[in-house]
Each structure stands twice: as C-alpha cells, then as structure tokens.
C-alpha cells in the first residue's frame, strides 16, 4: 500500500476500507501509519474521511454493538445546509452558489454537494444551471511584482541623478526587461557617447509603478480595463482561473420541507401503514448482493470426498491408513523393494530418529524370514536380488512414502484368513517424500490408491477397472504405457487425453503386484492383485488451473480461494 498522499487518496476514493467494504487488520495497520503524519493528508478528503471513521472504530464504542463489518455506505449529506438552500430560495427565488457560500461562510464545495443531493431527490425541488466565471490570479512573477515592485520600477530607482554606466546598470536581475520597459515609459534616457561608455540618466524625477497598481486591483477583484488585463497577461503576470458554480432556482416540486425517499421497506412502515404514502429510492440492480457469512470446506477435501464416493460406489472398502509412521519392512521389504533401492535413500525418505526402530519381535517372524529369503536368494520362481538382507533396514521407522505400505499390511492380513476371499480396497491419505520442493512438489501429499485382489486377475481387468474409475471422473480417453515399478510387474502408466492442453498427460500408475510380494505373504498362487495410484493434488491443480501447489494447501493458502471454490463435481469439466 502506498503512503503517497494523492495515490492513497485515490485508492480510498473507491473504498470504504482498505480491502473494500469490510474492516480488516490492514485498516488497523494503515491507521497507525497515517495517524502519525495526518497533517500530510489534510488535502486528501478520502483519506481524512477514512481516518476519522477508523479513529471512531478504534475508540471503545459503548452503545453500538461491536460489529465492525458494515456494508452500508456512509451518506455525507448535511441536512442543515439543504434546508438553508431551500429557505434562501423561498426568500430570494434565486441563488448563486458562490454568493451564498460567501454569505453563509461555508465551503463552496460543500454547498455544491448539498445542491447535488437536493437535485438527486425525486420530485424536482430545485433546478440548477451550471455556470462558470473566470477571474484572474497572479502568477508567481506577478506576486513578486506586488512584493518588490516591477522590474522597470526597480531599475528606475537604481539610476542615480548623476546617471550610471549602462553596463553597471545591466547587472541588476531582470535588467533587460526593466530597461526596455522603462525606456518605453519614458522614465530614462541613454547617452551613448558619454565619457566612459553609454550612460543612463533619469528622464523624470519620480515614477509611479502602474503595473503593480494594476496587479493589486486584479487580485482584489476590482474592475480593470480589458486592454490593461491583456497587457499584464502578455507579461505572464496573471493567469485565468475558472470557477464553476450553480445558479439555483425553484423547481416544479419546490417545497421547504424535504420528503426523503426511503431506502428500504421496514417493519414499522408495515405496522403503521406509512409505506402507502412514502416514496422509495431506486434500487441499484447492478450492484452485488451482500456477501454471505458462512462456513466453507476446503477445496482439496471436497475433491477427496468425490473420489471417496466413486470408490464406495464401485464397492471398494476403505483401508485403515491413519498411520503416518511406518517401518522399512512394510513400506519397502514386503513390497520386494531391495534395501539398496534409491527410494530408500535419505534423499527421498524421511527417517525417524525418535522412535527410530520397530522392535524385531513386532514383525511376524516366519513371514519376515520368507521376505528375507526371497530378497536374498529368490524362490517362488524368482532369482531374487542376490544380496545380504539386513533386518535393521527393515526395522528403521520412516514416514510412509506411499499408502501401498498399508495395502501390503491388508494383503498380508487377507492371506492369514483360513480361506481366501476376494476384496476391493481403497485409500486416500497423506504420504511423505523428502524431495526437493518446487511449485508442484511438497514434502507431503495425498495418495489415492485402489487395490483389487481376486483369483486370475489380469491386465485386461486392470484396464477395465481403470476405464470404469476414470469414466466416473469424466475422463474417457485413456492409454497405457509400459513402465517400471519395483513391486508391480506388469506395470502401466496411465495417460489421459487432456482436451484443454491438447495432449496426453500422465495421470497415474498401475500394475499387478509381483509374485515375490504376494507369495511370501501366503496368498494362493492364482490370486493376482491389481492396483493403481494417483495423487489427489495433481488432478485438482490441473482441473482448477492452479500452478503453485502452495496456493492449494498449507498456511499460505488464500482463504478467499477456499470460500470462492465452486461445488466439486469431478466428472464435469
């Protein structure tokens, strides 16, 4: 916000408060600053108006309720001035606003405001005709003449009786103009052949400074012949000033009692029936309605609700993901992700220093042994990774890097049932990556995950279910790209055609979990598990045209965005 008086004045000319129609912190902050230097703003009507108002708000007000958010504009009419105008009109039949202002010793602008407000009343109380008078005002030079005398007068007075060398005389300021004027007026003469060089002599004893007299007359608004005016105007000693004023006469509906039209229909009017005789102001239909005071849900969570509903519609059950802290075992090892995989690096994963480790005894020991063997030597048809698997890596607590850690726990649980029952599961919850942050990446985001476990599922089923899922999101055109994922094989990246961007964009990842993940859990060999995942933030950002993720989540989010966010229907463009 600029503190430059004129700019601030212009800014406030259109607003009741710094942020429009409501009192905010910023009014308070600005008030402190302006209040210290209020004298600088004396010429700024709007700043003064705002300052007075905020000052009032800042004082404890006893009678008024502590409501600081007011939507009504303050109407700046001065009732007594209106009345004065009407009374004078009644008496004199005609008013000239300039004259009345000086008679009543009121500010002319204030008077014009009162006239305008009378004009705005329905019923034509008065008629007003705008006129203008031009008068003359002394310029800076003109004022210096009045103070010090004209150049020619000063020059004349500098000529002594015995005369003066021209070259000395010309050293005076503005001597050139003064010399030629004094010559024309016949005040001085010059002897060019005098001894010692051209010498100037007085031609008259004394001189009258006529120009200054004229200027004085002009500034006192005395009448001055036109020719004289033109002379001084030519010398740029005066400049014209135009003053606008109104000539006011009675209107057809003139009366000295003002009947103001009502702004609103009130309960009293209904009770006493006065609405029948009242006039009402025109309503401004172009204005916005009053803003609602209401509560709001966060946009991203509104989108989350849509995704949840889609999963529930499709018969998916929600997985218990309220568990941000995981260990390496469920987050990586159970998924057949080798211990030297870059995702397990400190550059990508948040490790926990307190509580740093999961106790080894907390893992199912036979399953742990099977996982270890599968990593080291393979089994279940796999060659394994041929490295020394260390339980300490599995024990390390981390912030989960994906919700698939929870899917793995659920699948293990399913495998422990006496008889396998097919399932459809989903989750939408936070995951954490120790990544480099930029406009689209934060250290935490929401992962959406869908998992189906059934006998003999194949890629065709995965493609089928992805089409069903994305159709519910309003996305019809999909294609699939082969990809690599440590725990799914086959793996497919999901691309959708973005009509706005006119290109295929990656929207998620999917695949069939590897046998090296499922078989050690104890799932039957013919059970395949298909899964897909996407982030909640990315599609929301694309949909809403938000380029910086910090505008969507986190403390820096603009709450206006939250409040203005439309109803979320993800299947509608």
């Amino acid at each position, binding site marked *: 916000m600029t503190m430059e008086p004129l700019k601030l004045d212009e800014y406030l000319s259109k607003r009741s408060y710094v942020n429009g129609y409501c009192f905010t912190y910023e009014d308070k902050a600005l008030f402190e600053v302006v209040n210290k230097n209020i004298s600088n703003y004396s010429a700024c009507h709007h700043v003064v108006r705002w300052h007075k108002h905020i000052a009032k708000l800042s004082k404890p007000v006893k009678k008024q309720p502590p409501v600081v958010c007011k939507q009504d504009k303050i109407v700046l009419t001065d009732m007594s001035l209106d009345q004065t105008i009407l009374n004078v009109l009644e008496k004199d039949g005609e008013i000239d606003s300039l004259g009345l202002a000086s008679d009543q010793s009121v500010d002319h602008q204030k008077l014009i405001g009162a006239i305008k407000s009378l004009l705005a009343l329905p019923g034509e109380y008065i008629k007003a005709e705008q006129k203008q008078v031009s008068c003359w005002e002394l310029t800076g030079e003109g004022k210096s003449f009045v103070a010090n005398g004209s150049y020619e007068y000063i020059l004349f007075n500098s000529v002594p009786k015995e005369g003066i060398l021209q070259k000395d005389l010309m050293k005076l300021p503005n001597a050139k103009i003064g010399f030629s004027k004094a010559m024309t007026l016949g005040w001085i003469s010059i002897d060019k052949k005098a001894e010692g060089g051209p010498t100037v002599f007085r031609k008259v004893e004394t001189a009258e400074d006529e120009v200054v007299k004229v200027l004085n007359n002009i500034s006192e608004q005395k009448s001055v012949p036109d020719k004289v005016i033109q002379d001084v105007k030519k010398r740029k000693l005066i400049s014209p000033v135009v003053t606008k004023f109104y000539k006011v006469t009675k209107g057809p509906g003139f009366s000295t009692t003002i009947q103001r039209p009502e702004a609103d229909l009130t309960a009293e009017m209904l009770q006493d029936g006065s609405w029948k005789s009242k006039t009402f102001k025109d309503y401004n239909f172009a204005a916005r309605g009053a803003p609602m005071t209401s*509560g709001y849900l966060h946009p991203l969570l509104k989108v989350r609700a849509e995704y949840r509903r889609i999963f529930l519609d499709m018969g998916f059950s929600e997985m218990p993901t309220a568990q941000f802290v995981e260990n390496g075992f469920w987050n990586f090892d159970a998924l057949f992700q080798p211990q*030297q995989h870059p995702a397990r690096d400190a550059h990508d994963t948040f490790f926990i220093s307190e509580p740093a*480790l999961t106790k080894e005894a907390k893992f199912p020991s036979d399953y742990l042994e099977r996982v270890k063997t599968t990593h080291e030597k393979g089994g279940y048809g796999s060659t394994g990774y041929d490295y020394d698997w260390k339980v300490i890596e599995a024990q390390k607590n981390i*912030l989960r890097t994906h919700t698939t850690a929870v899917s793995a726990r659920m699948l293990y649980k399913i495998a422990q049932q006496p008889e396998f029952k097919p399932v459809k599961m989903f989750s939408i919850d936070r995951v954490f990556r120790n990544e480099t942050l930029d406009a689209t990446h934060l250290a935490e985001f929401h992962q959406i995950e869908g998992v189906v476990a059934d006998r003999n599922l194949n890629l065709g089923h995965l493609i089928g279910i992805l089409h069903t899922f994305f159709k519910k999101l309003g996305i019809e055109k999909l294609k699939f790209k082969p990809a690599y994922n440590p725990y799914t094989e086959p793996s497919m990246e999901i691309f959708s055609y973005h009509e706005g961007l006119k290109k295929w964009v990656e929207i998620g990842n999917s695949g069939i979990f590897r046998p090296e993940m499922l078989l050690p859990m104890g799932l039957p060999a013919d059970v*395949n598990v298909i899964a897909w995942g996407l982030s909640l933030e990315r599609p929301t950002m694309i949909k809403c045209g938000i380029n910086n993720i910090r505008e969507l989540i986190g403390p820096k989010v603009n709450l206006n965005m939250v409040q203005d966010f439309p109803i979320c229907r993800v299947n509608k463009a």
Partner: protein
Amino acid sequence: MPTISVTRDILYERLGKTFTDDDFEDECFDFGIELDDIVEENNVVKFKIDIPANRYDLLCVEGLSRAMNVFRDRMVVPKFTVVPGQEKLIVDDSVSGVRPYCVAAVLRDMKFTEESYNSFILLQDKLHQNIGRERSLVSIGTHDLDTIQGPFTYQALAPEQIKFQPLNQDSVMTAPEMFEKFRQTYLKPYLQILEGKPLYPLITDANGVVLSLPPIINGEHSKITLDTKNVFIEVTACDRAKCRIVIDTICSMFSEYCSAPFTCESVTVESSSGSVLTPPMKYQTMECSAAQLCTKGGITGLTPDSVADHLTKMFLPSKAVGEQVTVEIGPTRHDILHQCDVEEDLAIAYGYNNITEQVPNLHTIGVEQEVNKLSDAIREELARAGFTEVLTFSLCSRDDISTSLRNGKALEEAVQIANPKSNEFQVVRTSLLPGILKTASCNRKMPLPLKLFEVSDVVFKSEDTETGSKNQRKICALFSGKTSGFEVVHGLLDRIMLSLSEKNYSIRASEESMFFTGRGADILLGTEKIGHLGILHPEVLENFDISLPCSVLEMSLEPFV
C-alpha cells in the same frame, strides 16, 4: 527414472529411419520409454529419453537402438560370446572391509570414433549414477591395456601408502593429497565413500602402475583415448549382483566395436575363495507354458509360435516347442527375475493398448473407515457453524509445537525426523494449532472475525503400536477478531457435543501456559481430558505474528469413533 541424452540423427541412422518427433514419441510410448524433451545443443538435436530404472541395457544409444531395431524386426538379437583371455586379476583379502567385489574383462581390437568414445564415457556415468548409486555400490575403471601389464592386483592399502598421478592431474600425489584437492571438484560427493576407512582400495599392474583408486579416480598412465585398441575394464563393488550386471552391460554394449563384434575376452579373477572367469555373460533359459504367459496380460488368441516371436522382439530370443516356449535370457536382460517379467514383455510386445478390457466380476459392498466417516460429518457441522476449513502440513518445526505454543514438553511426545532438509520438517505435529495460526497470520486481508477449523491427524509416540507411534484424529477451531471470542469457541464445543449426542462433558479451568492466565480450560469427557479451549496467551500470538486476540479449541475425536 534415468534420463539419457542421445543425438537424434545418430539414433535415426542406427534405426535406419527418420521419424517425425510425434511418430518417434509414439514409438517410444509403446516400447515403454518416454521422449521427455527435445533440445538443441551446439546445433545438434538431442533427445532426452526416460529409461525404466531396471533397463541398464538401454542407457546408451548402442543398446537403445539395438533394442528398438529388434522390436521393429530390423535386427536379429546378437549372440554375445566370451573368448578365454590371458589376463589375470588377483583380489587380495584386504579389500573385504572396504569394497569386496571386483571383476574384469577385455575388449580386444576396438575401433573408437569420437561418437562411440563419448557414448562409452556417458554409459559409465549413467551406470555410476543409477545402479552404482553414485559410485557407492559399483564403480567402473576403463584402461588402455597396451600401457599396462598383468597380472593385476586389487588390494586395500593405507591412504598414505597410495601414491600416483591421477587422471587429468599434472603430478604424482598421495591419496590424502588427492582428497584434499578433489574436495574442490566434481569428485567431492564421492570422497565420503572412502573417507574414514583405514584402508583404500587400489588396482595396480605387475609393475606397480596404479590403474585406479576405486571409486574415486583412475590413473593418468592407463587412460583410454580415441586411439586405444584394447580396453581393460575393471568393476569394483559392494554388491556382487550389481557388479556382474555392470560388467555384462558394458561388455554387451561396447563389444559391438571389437574386430569380432559382440565378442569379449575373459579375465581370470583369483581370490582366496577360488578362481572365476569374468565377465559372466551368462545365458539362462526359462521354460514356460505359452498359455500361462498370456494369462497375466489377458492376451488371447496367440499361438505358441506367435508368443515366441513377440518375446524375441523384446530381446528375449524364444522358441516354441509344442505348447511350451523356451525363453533365452541373455546378459543384457538382468532385469528378468521371474516369469512375470517375461509376461510383461509379452504384453508390451502385444501392445498394452491392444489388450481387451474386462471388468472384474466381483461384487463387493464398500465400507468406510468409521474415523473418516465421523470426521467428514463433523467437518460438515463445523462448516455449517460458520467456520472455514484449512488444510495444513503434518510436518513442522520443533519450535512450532513447543516454544511457540509455550509448551516445552510437547517435544517429549513428538515423533522426530532424523534427516529433515529444512526446519519445516523436524517433527510430526502433535497439535493442529500451529498450522491454523499460521493460516490466520497469512490471511490478514480477510474480513473479521476469522473463524477457522481443521480436522486432521496428529502423531504421538506410543508404546502400544508396532512402530512406536500412533495417529490421533483431532478437531481444531480458531476464532480471531476484535474480541477474544471465548464464548464462540465454547459455543462451538457445545454444538460439537450436541451433534455427537454427548451430554457427559464439562470444562474445567486449566493452567496450560499457552492460554492467557485464567482463560484456559480442559475439556473433560466424564473425567478424562480430551482437549482444551481458551484465549491464547499474547506471547503465543506474538510468536505467530498475530495482532488480534484469538480463542481456540482443540480436542481428540478418537473417543467418539
């Protein structure tokens, strides 16, 4: 996912075809690689191509074009052969504590061009970065065999005993001197792999000439040039499987330029555990039922012969015998661990987008988690009560939950992060308040009063769970305006309890230091404390840069789930 940079025209020349950018992008898409970017460097058009992280055989233009040519039926999968060589490498037991594995190979009668030489260097770089995990697991040294003399020795020595002229340096120096010097160079990140170790690994020839100090630097003496004919390759590692993969990859990629293409020469590696010939360049076969291979892809209508043809296109030479398919897995396909990897390749060759979609015939009823169902219902109630929802981060600084809230004890129960990149991620929050206060502080332009809420998880240490920590669902609400608004958050508490049909609650004066003296209260459910509410202490407001009074309510939702 590694990204490689290849010169477009060289790639097209190798592919025997010029594509439009879009056509090439489609070609990549179906093959499972991604044309990420097209850039112009010194008037040469380069493609930046994303390669799947387990396909080390596609990390150079040689391997990439070979695989794509085979995929496009322009080339037959070459047979890689190893001929016995005379060179020997002795691995001393001293390396076991620092970098235990070492293998070697010789590429004989090579002919480098500037392009192939650069590609050779770039491949080593890519292998170092990816499978080598920035050289920590695997590193490669390549040498001009004609400048050195076997047998070679791989041993570990005290740093002070190591003295040679490193690559691209003017003088002979000791290992500590090198490390001092390299600290200012691009080698800096690798120094920590050895620093602090009592012994450093070193490869020398029969005359004591140093080939390399892995994984830091090679010797100047044996460096390869464009004129090098015979290349000695050594790979040292902390992981034996990755060691094999790397040497196989280099040999299979660059034996193309030997006088006998796709042939390399073995080196005898002797150690206390015996003697082996490297590179392994092993071929394995996998016998699979053709029908079974098709099942996972959901592929129908392929004969066993057709299955074999599809797999051959994926650099997996295969033959059908009756209903069975014999798949040959060569030294370029170390990514094949299981039959499922072959099944994926079949699906890729068949085309993911040609697979018939089917919807699983599985009828289930969706069930929500109660805690989420209840949270959503409460969120709706809070919004209806005129509060605006915020969404803030689970991670925050230690100060945010402790000193800023005048609650030093909070850290005792908080989960702490070992490796935060900034102080914004030091702990997992134990309270929703810091996030909500920061939001209020960032939104000074909003009309007053501000009424905010969040329903989300915080995390506490807990003895009763597997990981030693536990999420807790919390409700937090804030009122901020010209007045403190205590009665507003108190009213909200009544509203919440009413909506939960809970009558057995009360509030009791609390001494918690985050509240203004005498203006804080505990929320009790029966006799159990489940939260608190009150007017925040002015110091707390100051810590969050807030200049208006605030009242807050924070309580656990868990008892009501």
